[in-house]
């Protein structure tokens, strides 16, 4: 009887076991193996062992580190900007009841829009003749329209602004959930003590939604450092004339699928995954400091 039950339970678990073996564990080993090979999937007979060659090549490759710098530069702006927007929106939505769910729905629309659609619209909006730049020139904020895609320092900040528009809704919803679960009596007590609105936000709301903030930071690191479609759609595979929009995943795509250097691309993937994993763990360590449990 006992054995029979377990047997059935494993049958239910089977999809995961298969998925884990075929699409996670095996590719992981394959990736590791490839990183020591010079391999091209189109003519595998020319595969040869290169030892640490790929690792050395990637580790000393200025372009890889530039791509990492680019994406970090982008993320710093994105994380700060989207955090402020999302928190402000969540605090405002939490204050009001009338039509709050309508506004919440509207502010969430960019999240459900596909990145392809959003990037096409954005490309025209931010173009030198587009409405954003026209109105900036009209009001004197800009002297003349800027071809931002061909500049050295503009692509990453501009994309960070776009990503903030696209993704702040997710963070807003998560913060709203956190704020809603805070015990109201904390605010009432603070009010009796004459605490200002700002003080209530910094001393009650922010510490109480710390789990949500940590969660948001974690998904930002994991997703943000793997940015691809945003740059792939609007730049060449080099990320523009200064490689200013070259991200690690774009670089991996270029190495693996344009130059067909699968071994080197696997190495980039492994190294990037390692970097992301380390950053995630560091961030979790840092944010859990001061927690009692």
């Amino acid at each position, binding site marked *: 009887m006992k054995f029979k039950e377990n047997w059935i339970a494993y049958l239910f678990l089977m999809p995961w076991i298969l998925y884990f073996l075929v699409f996670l564990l095996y590719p992981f080993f394959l990736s590791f193996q490839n990183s020591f090979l010079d391999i091209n999937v189109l003519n595998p007979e020319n595969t040869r062992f290169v030892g640490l060659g790929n690792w050395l090549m990637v580790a000393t490759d200025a372009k890889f580190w530039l791509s990492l710098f680019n994406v970090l530069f982008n993320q710093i702006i994105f994380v700060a900007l989207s955090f402020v927007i999302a928190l402000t929106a969540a605090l405002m939505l939490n204050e009001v009841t009338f*039509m709050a769910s309508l506004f919440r729905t509207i502010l969430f629309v960019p999240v459900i829009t596909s990145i392809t659609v959003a990037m096409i619209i954005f490309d025209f909006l931010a173009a030198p*003749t587009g409405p954003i730049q026209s109105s900036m020139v009209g009001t004197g904020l800009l002297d003349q329209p800027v071809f931002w895609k061909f500049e050295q320092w503009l692509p990453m900040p501009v994309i960070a602004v776009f990503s903030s528009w696209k993704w702040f809704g997710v963070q807003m919803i998560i913060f709203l959930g956190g704020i809603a679960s805070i015990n109201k009596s904390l605010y009432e007590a603070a009010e009796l003590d004459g605490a200002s609105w700002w003080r209530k936000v910094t001393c009650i709301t922010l510490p109480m939604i710390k789990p949500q903030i940590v969660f948001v930071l974690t998904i930002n690191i994991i997703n943000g450092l793997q940015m691809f479609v945003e740059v792939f759609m609007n730049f060449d595979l080099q990320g523009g004339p200064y490689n200013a929009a070259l991200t690690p995943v774009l670089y991996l795509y270029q190495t693996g699928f344009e130059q067909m250097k699968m071994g080197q691309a696997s190495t980039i993937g492994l190294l990037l995954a390692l970097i992301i994993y380390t950053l995630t763990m560091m961030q979790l360590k840092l944010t859990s400091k001061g927690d009692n449990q």
Partner: protein
Amino acid sequence: MIRIKKQHWLIYGSLILASIVVLYPFFFMIINSFKTGAEIMHTPNALPTDWSFRGYIEVFNSINLGRIFLNTIFIATSVTVLNCLFSSMVAFAIVKTNMPGREFWLKLILSSMMIPAILFTIPVYMMMYDWNWVNTYRVLIIPGSISAYNIFLLVQFMKQIDNAYLEAARIDGASEFRIFFKVVLPMLRPALATVGILTFMGAWNDFMGPLLYIRDDSMLTLQMALFKFQSDVPGGKLEQLWAMTTMIAVPVVFVFFFLQKNFIKAFTGVGVK
């Protein structure tokens, strides 16, 4: 009459302003889809002088949009149905059985979410190439037919189902399969709606999969067709590009407005805890 507090006017003002910023790009998209190509080039920011449906009509001659819609619906539906089934089976094994090692499997599933997906792109591509799965529908369906995040969400929901229902069914002599399909799945319906929407949206918006694996124009998905259209004719057939973009974006927004509660639940599943 609804009375609004004085200090709330400032908040409503800001919320309206934020809504305009959020919705303006869609407004821009829609007005441009009703212009002619020349007008899009020269006055991209103005309203159309003369509302034209040319883009909407001609785009159907340029590409087989119906087929592309069907492809995308087929792929996204298959992924969603399989993923809901398989992910809830695994959640059932973890939450509702006495299988040894349940904690271990759950930990494994949770920690697999921390591994960046990019690690698997190249090796999975090489596997698919070896298996001759490139340029098939199954390459976009099978790898997406189960996901750690969905299992995690369903585990949370499954925990809320009272074991008494399962016990009662067991006493009646129902098999575990019958219990899963006739007792647990119906009770999971709201959770499956949430998980299903998230999965459907992910498959519908998938870019990397079709980019790497689909070669035939007849097998394109919406996102890839849109991307190809944009990059094949830079600056050309603009009215068709805008019409196509609008036709792809607007239905999703409509569905979202109807099912917004489920969408929002899907995104907060992990956050609230």
